């Protein structure tokens, strides 16, 4: 091996060594771009046992039911969400995921959560339905329900569904996200729903 070849080996070893030793110091001064990570949020419902089973489906008057609504933040930063709960009947529009539009129905309940990046937060959601009042042979109106201990007046009509033998309601949980630039809460195009059948006494 010639001296010039030894020199080349030393220069290469020197450059690699300097880069490796200087890297921790460089990292604390220069912000290196992180590998591209998809930013998204989660919204999910768990049953009473905090598992994905045992969801309430058939409703009895005044019986208290509960589910857990979970929100997960994978946006790369802390996020401030609003979970908006809406009660829909069979003719109300669900949120439109394609157009990113929420359901036009007014919320019956809302709660706000702040979630740290890469964490989830589960909140207990209890509800019980009040009495149905028949308005005709085929329709009835739900006067109110109790949500997390608070009485909510809804006066929500529903048509009798002969296949279900009752009246169908849909509890929709929508996820909204706070936008600090506009200082407003915006629909985040995530929703989950719980279809509930209120059996009719005539069924």
């Amino acid at each position: 091996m010639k001296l010039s070849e030894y020199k080349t080996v030393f220069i290469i070893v020197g450059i690699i060594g300097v880069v490796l030793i200087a890297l921790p110091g460089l990292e604390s001064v220069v912000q290196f771009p992180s590998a591209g990570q998809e930013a998204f949020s989660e919204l999910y419902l768990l049953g009473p046992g905090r598992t994905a089973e045992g969801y309430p489906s058939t409703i009895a008057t005044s019986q208290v039911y509960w589910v857990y609504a979970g929100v997960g933040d994978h946006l790369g930063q802390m996020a401030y969400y609003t979970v908006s709960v809406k009660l829909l009947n069979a003719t109300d529009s669900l949120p439109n995921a394609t157009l990113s539009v929420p359901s036009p129905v007014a919320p019956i309940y809302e709660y706000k959560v702040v979630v740290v990046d890469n964490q989830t937060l589960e909140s207990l959601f209890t509800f019980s339905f009040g009495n149905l009042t028949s308005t005709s042979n085929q329709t009835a109106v739900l006067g109110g329900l109790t949500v997390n201990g608070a009485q909510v007046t809804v006066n929500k009509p529903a048509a009798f569904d002969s296949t279900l033998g009752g009246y169908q309601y849909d509890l929709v949980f929508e996820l909204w996200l706070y936008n600090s630039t506009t200082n407003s809460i915006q629909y985040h195009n995530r929703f989950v729903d719980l279809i509930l059948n209120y059996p009719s006494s005539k069924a």
Partner: protein
Amino acid sequence: MALAASPSVAGIGSVFAQSDSAKSQLQNAANAFAQAFAAVSDAQKAGANVTSLVNQLNSAGSSLSQADMSYARGDFNGTIAAAAATILATQSIVPQAQNLKSSAQASGHDAALSSVAFSIIGVAVFLTVLFLVWRYVKNSYMRSILDARPEVVEG
């Protein structure tokens, strides 16, 4: 007729005033909550441990949700009370978040400085050692070349 209508007009005016006051208080609470969220978010970005502050924020968020729901129900007294509770809760969050942010920034700055210093010293030591090794290798190489030179033999 006018005399009979006066009390109800005054009553309606009072309801409107209460509604305006509740709406304004609700807006103040929402702004206070957003400011507290921004302060905690900034503290976290600076590297602070904000677990406790996030719990406090979520507690204030419950009050704000309650204020929102009360307003939607037309319960203006309930709105004002819940909004006041939100503002009170967020008032203690903002200074705590700012302190945590300052501490995190200071310790982050110190850590960065010591990391840079260690890197500079490390590079200097590495280059010195490498230079000494290079000199030794070079001298050894030269010696081996000189030792291997052909000898002139008289004959």
